[in-house]
């Protein structure tokens, strides 16, 4: 795995995986095991170059955090990982995103199948205007998943999302009757209901209070046992608390057009990024001097 080196457009190597530092999370391998990786990922919105040459590898049963200032393309990269960017007509993706070694932008790949394996939780809780039960059952039903007993399945998903005790008596009520934090956990439960392999989360706690946030963070740590999680966050403490690896992005204005194109600055174990960043820009950002 050499995918984690990122040549800067200027030509110097800006990041290499650490091989020497011990990690607080015991057993975290130095290089991610590579469930997913992006190779030379470039994204354009029409003529606007949003993301430049991103090479990242995401490890199995790890939480990877994407951080960086607003507009640097974190959401854009995340949405490329399950082809949600296909829904934006102007978006164009170059390079490849490999999932178990298969390029999900390859000619034979069906984006629907990709999304069944790589689920997504959005920034704003977006439950369906249906009952809590149907919010969970919708995914398995709509993709024709074999479920022995839907009631049990719904319960299992809600338990996994740490929501069961709060909603077990009102499964028939609308998903909108829940609080924001509960809605977000419902959305997480809905995402794991289709048994994905990878879960993408785009600022899942940005609309939530500290208590709900901490509930979701605990949940992420639990879910790591079974899933590969990639999370975008603006909350530095959150990245430091929950993630195993952190990728720092920034936006650099193009000399000729002035467009701010996002690029990957540094990618490493979270402890490394926060305690001993290699790049000055990373250090400035995490110490609050920038962004």
């Amino acid at each position, binding site marked *: 795995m050499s995918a984690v080196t990122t040549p800067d457009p200027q030509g110097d190597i800006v990041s290499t995986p650490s091989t020497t530092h011990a990690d607080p999370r015991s057993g975290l391998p130095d290089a991610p095991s590579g469930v997913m990786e992006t190779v030379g990922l470039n994204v354009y919105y029409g003529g606007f170059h949003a993301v430049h040459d991103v090479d990242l590898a995401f490890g199995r049963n790890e939480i990877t955090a994407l951080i960086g200032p607003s507009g640097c393309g974190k959401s854009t990269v995340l949405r490329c990982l399950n082809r949600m960017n296909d829904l934006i007509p102007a978006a164009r993706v170059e390079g490849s995103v490999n999932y178990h070694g298969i390029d999900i932008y390859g000619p034979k790949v069906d984006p629907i*199948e990709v*999304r069944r394996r790589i689920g997504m939780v959005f920034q704003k809780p*977006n439950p369906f205007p249906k009952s809590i039960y149907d919010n969970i059952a919708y*995914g398995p039903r709509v993709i024709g998943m074999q479920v022995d007993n839907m009631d049990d399945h719904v319960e299992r998903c809600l338990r996994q999302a740490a929501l069961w005790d709060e909603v077990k008596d009102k499964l028939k009520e609308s998903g909108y009757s829940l609080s924001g934090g509960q809605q977000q956990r419902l959305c997480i439960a809905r995402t794991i209901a289709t048994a994905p392999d990878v879960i993408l989360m785009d600022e899942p706690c940005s609309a939530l209070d500290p208590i709900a946030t901490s509930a979701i963070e605990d949940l992420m740590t639990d879910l790591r046992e079974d899933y590969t999680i990639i999370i975008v966050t603006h909350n530095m403490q959150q990245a430091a608390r929950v993630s195993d690896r952190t990728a720092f992005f920034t936006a650099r204005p193009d000399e000729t057009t002035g467009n701010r194109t996002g690029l990957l600055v540094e990618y490493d174990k979270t402890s490394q990024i926060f305690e001993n960043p290699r790049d000055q820009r990373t250090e400035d950002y995490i110490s609050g001097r920038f962004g």
Partner: protein
Amino acid sequence: MTSRRNQIATQAARDVTLAQLDGSNRGGQWKGAVFKAVLVLCITVAIVTLVAVVLQAFFTGLPRLDMNLIRNMPSSIDRSTSGMQSAIWGTVRLMVGVAVTVVPLGVSAAIYLEEFADRTKWYVRLIELNIQNLAAVPSIVFGILGLAFIVRGPLDLGFVVYAGSLTLSLLVLPTIILTTREAIRSVPGSIREASMALGATKWKTIWKQVLPSSVPGIMTGTILALSRAIGETAPLLLVGATVFVTYNPDGFFEGAFTSLPTQIFAWATRPQEEFRILAAAGIIVLMGVLIVMNSLAIWIRNKFTRTW
């Protein structure tokens, strides 16, 4: 010393603000008053006229607002007990025909335009523009179209109920398409994204999320469209709603038919006093149906409109 200066400064700022906020010397304030008076006058004229027409019809028609009106067939001999059963059944059949035709057609068109059509293509924009224009075409034009293409011409249905339904369907198709598009558009993108992110196909997302959320809007649009269709007279006269039918329509595809507004039209053109009263009674019935339909539409809209 400083406090004294502060006081003066505060006082000065206050005076200036007061002078600026004072609106009494603003020129042309009377213009606003005149404008308002004109508006009030307009709305008064409109309301008074409406109430006068309704009351006039009501008091004229009241004596014949009885069971005979519904039970009996139109008759020119027994004027005092003549009814309009054939017209009521004709209208019911017409509306059923319109509903089963126009709802699937209009909703499909709206789904295509909202979800699939590429709006950068010139022909899509042309279609959109024409749908809007179609809503403003005089109804008699649809009558002529119906006569040429539905009663005769390619479809050749003859003067039957369904020919009337089809003609009225064309007339209200733009209403259904526009209201359905509005309803589809109001379903937020985040719901579609959530469904797609779970691995649902676009079609499943539309069918299971977008359409169910649009049903109240579609229903409201349908009722409003039907209430426009139910009062139409001119196009029906062209496609065969006969002014005097003494039996109920045999079916959608056979036999002569009449409708409430055509029956009212027939009575209103007769010189005899009894027919004038009958016409007024018919108007009351028609207006009652319309009020019920519109109230239903408003009720559905208020009850089910979701604030996302």
